[in-house]
Every structure is written in structure tokens, then in C-alpha cells.
């Protein structure tokens, strides 16, 4: 069965520091993978998505993620964090087959940014 694990419930970084949020997925084959961000009292917004191809995916606001089939991972990175990045980040997986489009989400990682 498809599943996503985000092992860190909360990550705290200093403004200007680099960031990595971890995501591990379980899927037979190669899936589509997504990172969404949720700001307080708002819906989820897409940061980036992976389709089979280049393992490094660029997203909005300086975010990028790297797909690793051998590690079943899709970690999110940013070189320099800004205070406005304080939010909850969700990794999600979707099936390539079946034309469904539905997403399976992880529990999320809350990013806190210290001044």
C-alpha cells in the first residue's frame, strides 16, 4: 500500500540557515511525489512535484527536492530560510497508474524559524 512517512514532527532553524525536511515513501514502482505547504488558517499550496525524470525538482520560493529511488526518499531543501517560511509542510504520493490523481499525505512537519 502507498504511504508517506515524515519522521520529524517539528524542525527549528535560524533565519538564513539551510533547511532539509525529510520524507520517505512506500510505493511499488516509481510514484508521483509532491510537497505542499500550509500556512495558518489556509489551505494547502503546492511547492513542487516530481514526475519520473530529473531527480532534482525546483519549486517556488527557492525550494527544491531530490528524489531517490534507492532510499525511497523525497527530501525538501532550501538554501536560506526566511521567517515567512514558518508553516506546516506535507509530503504526498500519488499513483502513476489508474488515472486517479488522489494524494496520500504524510503527517506533516512544522517548520519554526528563529530570528
Amino acid at each position, binding site marked *: 500500500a502507498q504511504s*508517506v512517512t515524515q519522521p520529524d514532527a517539528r524542525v527549528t532553524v535560524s533565519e538564513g540557515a539551510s533547511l532539509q525536511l525529510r520524507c520517505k515513501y512506500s510505493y511499488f514502482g516509481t510514484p*508521483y511525489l*509532491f510537497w*505542499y505547504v500550509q500556512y495558518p*488558517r*489556509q*489551505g*494547502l*499550496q*503546492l511547492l513542487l*512535484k516530481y*514526475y519520473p525524470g530529473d531527480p532534482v525538482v525546483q519549486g517556488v520560493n527557492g525550494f527544491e527536492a531530490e528524489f531517490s529511488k534507492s532510499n525511497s526518499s523525497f527530501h525538501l531543501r532550501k538554501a536560506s530560510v526566511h521567517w515567512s517560511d514558518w508553516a506546516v509542510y*506535507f509530503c504526498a504520493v*500519488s*499513483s*502513476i*497508474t*489508474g*488515472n*486517479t*490523481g*488522489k*494524494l*496520500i*499525505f*504524510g*503527517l*506533516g512537519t512544522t517548520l519554526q524559524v528563529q530570528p
Partner: protein
Amino acid sequence: EAGVTQSPRYAVLQEGQAVSFWCDPISGHDTLYWYQQPRDQGPQLLVYFRDEAVIDNSQLPSDRFSAVRPKGTNSTLKIQSAKQGDTATYLCASSLGCSGNTLYFGEGSRLIVV
């Protein structure tokens, strides 16, 4: 282009009461999803539609939850006889149906059952 619109934004119920949530997807999107997001958790799929047809409702508690999309556009999610465990944010999303396409989410309807 208008995004996904949901209403009401908030609802507070006593146990046993009923509530309906309404969703207006992005124009032209054939696929509509309802997710339940308990506090401090990720969204969990309840049901989704392709046009007016239910594609998957296996995670919908069918004894008290129902969802319809009669004309393949707007959708209503109804909870009858609400329980405290239903306290969550209910998110609606829409997409063009093919696998891998982006889901666009509304701001959600936050339900508190006391």
C-alpha cells in the same frame, strides 16, 4: 481565475447535530476530493468524484457521512449526528483528472463538535 471555494469556514456543533459543507471547485476541473484533516495531522481522503460519479468512498464513514456532486460541479459533504471525533478541518480540492496533476485546495471548513 477563482480558486476552490468552501463554506462555511467554521462550524460549532453539539454531538448529534448535523452539518453540511459546500465546495465550488475550479471551473473546468472534473475531479473533486474531500479530505478530513484532524488537528496536527495530515489530510486523509474521504471521497472523490470524477464528474458526478463517486470513484472512491471507501474511507467515508457511510453511516453518518454522505457526499454528492449531482451536476459534476459543486459538491456537498454532510455529516449527520456528529461526534466529537469528527472535529477536524474538511478540505475540498479539485484537479483535472489525470494522475500526477496538481490538486488545488480550498481554505477548508473547520468543524468543532462539543
